[in-house]
């Protein structure tokens, strides 16, 4: 046990034995995925038409916003070049499903249905449609285990979208709560502020939504404020997730190499 905790010396053993647990995961997950498939099969014609219309509308609106985004992106790149800042990295996305399988309640982990067979690596960030969910902590042949933001051992560097104040968001062990730590009492943080990943540390990409500040408590005696944050991603319900694969920018690796 000590070896596993301190030295992770059983990672390989785990990986291969987990191969055997794959069928068990499938069996437990089967009723849920089957119910979903059947649900899709029996959805009425009317509701499908309605859903299609709604999707078309949102697509149109998003396309309109994308048009301006492209301009902004090129402008941004030009400005960054002027400032000689690093350019954005190349990122590719992979789609995965969350398996309906529970982990130990001590850990806020979920299992996804992609593993080393499609090239998932430890440390890859996971997104859902709202924001960052967590990162891959263990990879098996056909599954991987993802630690959610709320896991008590998880932390992510963030910045305030409003004014760029930096801090670290740490999991609390409760599914709907995070805490923003290491922010001095004098820093300008208010309830309702949006926090995005700051990209420091290089594990998470810069600029993805993490949470919204719910409450700021100033305790007289302490030098750091106590700040409660609500995660933006749908940690309890999300079903489809995106894995980010980051190719290091050739320019950056060149600069780092020299």
């Amino acid at each position: 046990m000590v070896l596993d905790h301190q030295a992770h010396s059983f990672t390989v053993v785990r990986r291969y034995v987990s191969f055997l647990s794959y069928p068990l995961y499938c069996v437990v997950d089967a009723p849920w995925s089957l119910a979903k498939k059947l649900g899709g099969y029996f959805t009425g014609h009317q509701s499908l038409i309605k859903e299609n219309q709604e999707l078309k509308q949102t697509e149109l609106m998003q396309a309109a916003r994308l048009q301006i985004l492209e301009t902004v992106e090129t402008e941004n790149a030009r400005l960054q070049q002027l400032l000689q800042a690093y350019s954005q990295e190349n990122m590719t996305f992979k789609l995965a499903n969350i398996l309906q399988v529970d982990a130990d309640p001590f850990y806020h982990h979920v299992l996804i249905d992609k593993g080393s067979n499609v090239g998932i690596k430890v440390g890859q960030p996971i997104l859902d449609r709202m924001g960052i969910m967590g990162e891959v902590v263990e990879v098996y042949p056909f599954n991987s285990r993802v630690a959610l933001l709320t896991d008590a051992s998880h932390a992510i560097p963030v910045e305030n979208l409003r004014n760029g104040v930096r801090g670290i968001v740490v999991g609390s062990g409760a599914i709907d709560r995070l805490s923003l730590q290491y922010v001095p009492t004098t820093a300008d943080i208010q309830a309702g502020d949006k926090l995005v990943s700051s990209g420091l540390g290089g594990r998470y990409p810069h600029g993805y939504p993490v949470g919204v500040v719910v409450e700021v408590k100033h305790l007289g005696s302490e030098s750091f404020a106590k700040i409660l944050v609500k995660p933006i991603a749908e940690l309890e319900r999300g079903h489809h997730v995106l894995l980010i694969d980051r190719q290091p920018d050739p320019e950056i690796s060149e600069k780092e190499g020299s």
Partner: protein
Amino acid sequence: MRLIRGEIPFKVLFSCFLAWMLVLMPLPEKLKWIRPEWVTLVLIYWTFKKPKMVGLFTGWWVGLIMDILQGTLLGQHALAMVLVVYFAHKLHHRLRAFTPLQQALVVLVLVGIGQLCLALVQWQIGSPPKGMLYWGSTLTSVLIWPVLSHFLNYYERKAH
């Protein structure tokens, strides 16, 4: 060394399999902490019923597989199961003379020992259980015990 036996009969394995599935079954966040300890209960039942077949060896392997399924530290559940099986083994002679209520008390103590062991390990690695809710699963385990033991009893007789 009568405690350590190598053969695990099919019935034990099958009920453990069902218990593992119940452990992995998705539950809403609030109910997760009071999920009965299915695997511990099944092991206790078989230790009482077939003390010559189910021993520390079985307990160890069942716990280890549980660790792999749940992604906990390898050996965490194994240690807890071995302890539970050991004490269950010590008590199984006396158990025949016990009333159902006394039996339930014994199960309460046994599951409690297992949970305490898990909590100690968690505390050692720096994420101790928060609040009293953690012990809720021990209570629900005892409440479900009469039903489970009746069911397993029925299953065992059917399978003969």
